[in-house]
């Protein structure tokens, strides 16, 4: 055992020095970090404030559009303040106001003034979110009364970024122009099929960001319909009341305790979190399986193996390798999971607005059995594949030779990846259950089913089968390894290897 540990220690120390190991350690956390951070950046910094001009020659919809944009902005401020109050509010944080209360009671300044006395001493000053859209005045010299084609022609250089206008003394590029024609009332479409008039002109070179366009469309149409109701003699208050009626649709999960069946963000995360772990499991096992292979081949092709075998038994050598490389893998996976927790924890505690997503993820990870299952399946899955790799590596003389066989193992390993997204959709379905009982796939598929309460027979049965498979594979690998490791020349035929097992 002492010698196996010496071998393991060398494997660990040498592999821990390789670039691949550090790339593996660093790359995955970097990916995790960016996959959490980038969408936020894109939201906060990536899309800068977009400046728009609004020319309403009809005089019908201008105010509702500006009101809508303002209300959307106030909702952002309200959300940010709610988060701020939750985090730093301290003692006298009462019930948060509704959005309407917030706006009617004086908005940001009023609520902040109310919050300030009770704020925790370490609270940073509140930073209001940036406006997504900001209305600016028409560039000087542009005539708002001109015909729309002429007006558009005048605005085009600004929209193309060739000319700049000014806001608060700073040069800014104009992103959007909303031009409402004088005869808007005549351009209302009342029956389907009639020729569609141009209506309101929305000028922008950015087709991807449709938020403002949708807001304009929705607001204007609501306003137009409201005017229609009034024109037909309906009561404005009644119309408003009718507009607010709606029936909610709730998602419920039959697997949850009664009374708590409501499906929330956490449930959706729970459904998909296992897939993330399957992916992590796959990457980890694949990476260290490769490491193990190139490692054995190096010893074999360099004939170092012979010196080793004059000092340790093949059993000790194999055990040492398994342990050493497992330790490398665990270090790597451990670093990944720690980073994941660190990033999630930091995001949940830190920046405003992100806790909505990261909080539930963290809760799910901490409360569920995902992590212990990941640990168990990582170790067992690793051992099973490592046994195959050890046997394979011991009979090949060069990495090139081994790689053609490795391709087969890679192909076998592709199945869990291909089913990665199918399994969570039907976690206890036939496909999932059948694949679970194939030891090579058990770790991946059962991991993917982890949050779907698979039947106990599946959970325990597949685990026992996997354990048996690991024991069997290690036994066979030991036999093949013992003989194969000293062989040179052509890799043996399968039949020949089967004969080795009987020795």
């Amino acid at each position, binding site marked *: 055992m002492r*010698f196996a540990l*010496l*071998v393991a220690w*060398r494997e660990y120390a*040498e592999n821990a*020095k*390789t670039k691949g190991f550090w790339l593996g350690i660093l790359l995955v956390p970097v990916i995790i970090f960016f996959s959490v951070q980038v969408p936020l950046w894109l939201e906060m910094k990536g899309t800068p404030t977009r400046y728009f001009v609004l020319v309403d020659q009809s005089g019908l919809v201008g105010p509702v559009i500006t009101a809508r944009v303002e209300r959307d902005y106030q909702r952002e401020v309200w959300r940010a303040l709610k988060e701020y109050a939750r985090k730093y509010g301290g003692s006298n944080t009462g019930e948060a106001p509704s959005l309407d209360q917030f706006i009617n009671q004086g908005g940001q300044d009023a609520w902040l003034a109310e919050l300030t006395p009770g704020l925790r001493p370490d609270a940073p000053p509140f930073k209001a979110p940036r406006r997504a859209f900001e209305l600016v005045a028409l560039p000087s010299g542009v005539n708002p009364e001109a015909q729309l084609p002429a007006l558009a022609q005048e605005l085009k250089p600004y929209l193309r970024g060739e000319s700049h206008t000014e806001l608060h003394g700073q040069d800014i590029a104009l992103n959007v122009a909303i031009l409402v024609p004088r005869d808007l009332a005549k351009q209302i479409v009342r029956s389907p099929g009639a020729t569609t008039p141009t209506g309101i002109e929305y000028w922008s070179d950015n087709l991807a960001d449709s938020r403002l366009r949708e807001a304009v469309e929705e607001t204007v149409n609501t306003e137009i319909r409201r005017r229609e109701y009034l024109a037909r003699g309906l009561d404005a208050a009644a119309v408003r009341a009718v507009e607010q009626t709606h029936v909610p649709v709730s998602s419920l999960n039959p697997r949850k305790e009664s009374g708590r069946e409501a499906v929330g963000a956490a449930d959706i995360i729970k459904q998909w979190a296992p897939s993330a772990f399957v992916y992590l499991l796959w990457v980890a096992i694949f990476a260290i399986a490769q490491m193990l292979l190139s490692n054995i081949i*190096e*010893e074999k*092709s*360099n*004939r*170092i193996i*012979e*010196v*080793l*075998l*004059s*000092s*340790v*038994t093949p059993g000790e050598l194999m055990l040492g390798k398994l342990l050493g490389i497992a330790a490398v893998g665990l270090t790597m996976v451990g670093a990944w999971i720690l980073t994941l927790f660190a990033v999630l924890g930091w995001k949940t505690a830190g920046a405003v607005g992100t806790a909505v997503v990261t909080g539930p993820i963290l809760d799910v990870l901490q409360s569920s059995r995902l992590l212990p299952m990941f640990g168990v399946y990582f170790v067992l899955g690793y051992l099973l594949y490592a046994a195959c790799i050890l046997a394979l590596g011991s009979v090949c003389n060069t990495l090139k030779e081994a790689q053609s066989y490795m391709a087969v193992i890679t192909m076998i390993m592709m199945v869990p990846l291909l089913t990665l997204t199918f399994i969570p959709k039907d976690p206890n379905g036939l496909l999932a259950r059948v694949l679970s009982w194939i030891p090579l796939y058990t770790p991946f598929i059962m991991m993917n089913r982890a949050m779907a309460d698979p039947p106990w027979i599946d959970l325990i049965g597949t685990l026992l089968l996997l354990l048996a498979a690991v024991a069997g594979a290690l036994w066979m690998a030991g036999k093949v390894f013992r003989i194969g490791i*000293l062989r040179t020349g052509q890799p043996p035929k399968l039949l020949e290897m089967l004969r080795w097992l009987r020795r």
Partner: protein
Amino acid sequence: MAGPQLVNAKATTGAAPLEVRGVTKLFGGFRAVDDVSFQLPAGAIYGFLGPNGAGKTTTIRMILEIIKPTSGSITVLGASSALQVRQRIGYLPEEKGLYKKMKNWAVIAYFATLKGLSRAAAKRRAFELLERYGLKDFATKPTEALSKGMGQKVQMLASIAHDPEFVILDEPFSGLDPVNQQVMEDIIRDMAGRGRTILFSTHVMQHAERLCDRILLLAKGRKIFDGTVAEAQRTLPRRVRIETADNIAPLTELPEVAAVRPLPPTSDDREGPVAAWEVELRGAADPQAVLQACFVRGIRLRSFNQSEPTLHEVFMRLVGPEAREVAAR
């Protein structure tokens, strides 16, 4: 022609470091080693000779218990398995290789720890050896930075870092330049001087001739010869080289002479070309008898050289195309 008398190793006092008894190894139907027996006296330098495919490496692997013999038994340092005494054995395999990315001191230290040295002692020893054999500057460089010969030296150091009692070296000289061959010879002599037993295989007869106390000759898996270098030389008839312008026919009639063969004529001198002859003697005949016969029969000699056959000649004779199997026991 009298069959040379081959003497088996005399019983040595104390436990022999290695005893190989009737060992046979079959690979499928192929007899790689066929009923080989020999014994190593303690403190000896033992040469393991034989052409390619003679079964040297297979025998060495069996001694080290890397592979198991099909039949027969091996006792190493008093143990029935080399694994029980592996910490007292050093081994340099035929095909040399090192971990490419590992530092030189670390490789030596690693193999030393596998032989039971503590980590600290192994490290100290590694630096000490590298310094002693002129590789100090490479101690903290990866092994891939070494030339082939230097790499081989490092591997040699790695195999003896734990100061083993019994060292097995498979082709230690192959691939080394003359300077490093000398270094290798010095290492071997130094170990033998400290009472270590060394078994090394080689193709190069000069090394064996210079270093070995005893040699074992294998061919096609079977033992051909086992004994001292002098004994090996005695397996070939003694020869005398003479140069004369006279007729040497009378010599062939001597009872001591087995054959007379012409050699290419040598130096021209004032009296014109002089013929050279090789006179092969019978059995234990004394070369002096030839000299006396020449004198008696008036054959004027330009030169008379009495030479012992080289190990190379012995080797060629014993395992060459016309090789005869000499009674091994």
